């Protein structure tokens, strides 16, 4: 519990720092489309969430982290599949998005990995996921939880 409190305090600090620097990118410039996640079996297994993040502003933005009350350890991960067909998953430090560009978090590529779930992910519910950018800019999206075998935001 203590960990959550200190983390949100830190995030508030970040937001404050961002607000005091008007020249930098603005949360209004970050548009998140098609967010979705699969339902989980209980809380032991990690979940994953997907979405497209667009930078509609004139300044580059860099995604540096995630926060959500749903998971103690949310992180951006990337799945890679080698030419031999072997899949592996590694944490991604940061993702830079140029002005006018977008980044897709989708199955088999980048994903928001939700480790140490605090509650099961139930189909039909939603959870807030905050994307934390460099310079303290934050964007929060309400992620719908789809079926366990969902393949995309339309499922």
């Amino acid at each position: 519990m203590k960990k959550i409190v200190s983390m949100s305090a830190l995030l508030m600090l970040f937001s404050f720092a961002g607000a005091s620097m008007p020249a930098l990118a603005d949360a209004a410039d970050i548009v998140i489309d098609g967010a979705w996640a699969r339902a989980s079996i209980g809380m032991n297994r990690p979940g994953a969430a997907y979405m497209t993040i667009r930078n509609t502003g004139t300044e580059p933005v860099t995604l540096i982290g995630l926060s959500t009350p749903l998971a103690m350890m949310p992180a951006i991960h990337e799945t890679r599949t080698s030419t031999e067909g072997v899949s592996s998953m590694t944490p991604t430090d940061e993702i830079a998005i140029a002005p006018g560009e977008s980044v897709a978090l989708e199955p088999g590529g980048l994903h928001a990995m939700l480790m140490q779930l605090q509650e099961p992910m139930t189909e039909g519910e939603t959870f807030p996921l905050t994307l934390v950018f460099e310079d303290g800019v934050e964007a929060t999206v309400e992620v719908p939880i789809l079926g366990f075998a969902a393949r995309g935001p339309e499922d």
Partner: protein
Amino acid sequence: MKRTRFLGYGTAAVAAVGMMLFVGWWQVDGPGAPEPMGQRPIPLTEMAFSLTDHEGNAVGPEALLGSPTMAFFGFTYCPDVCPTTLSDISDWLDALGNEADPLNVIFITVDPERDTVAAMAEYVSYFHPAIRGWTGPEEQIARAAEGFRAVFERVPTDSGDYTMNHTASVFLFNAEGQFVTTIDYHEAREFALPKIRRALQQEMEETT
């Protein structure tokens, strides 16, 4: 005279280059190529391993003979690739309808420590009912993977847990247990369905 000699050299040079190219092809892509890392799975008839399906039945490669087989390695703590592939497989099976009835569809875990029979039973229940989950002792899973020429590796994560790197291709075998082809990770339905039909047809050819 000069010209013909020049031509002669030219021809020899072309022939030499041609020969080098041929030798190069032979060694790199041709029949002389060494077996690549991701080589073909051996026939199911030559595999030997014993596992348990998600209903507690003893199973092995011999249980698959007589019907074509689609097999995939993964683990239930896999948040991305495995649910995506099992959803893809479910989608292909739905698209094939009754045509897919003879097909054995198996999901073999590479993480037996967490994927008990009960865990596999719960996990496969969320996908197409034809999908069977197989688990068992790690050395038996290693023997199965070896036969399929699949690899898996345990990797620690920042959260203190571990994840598994693993071959994510879907393997297809005909009813005789001969390897037919693989479907790559997240391959589009229009490419996947003809491959599955090939494995199914090879069965029909034998029975008719």
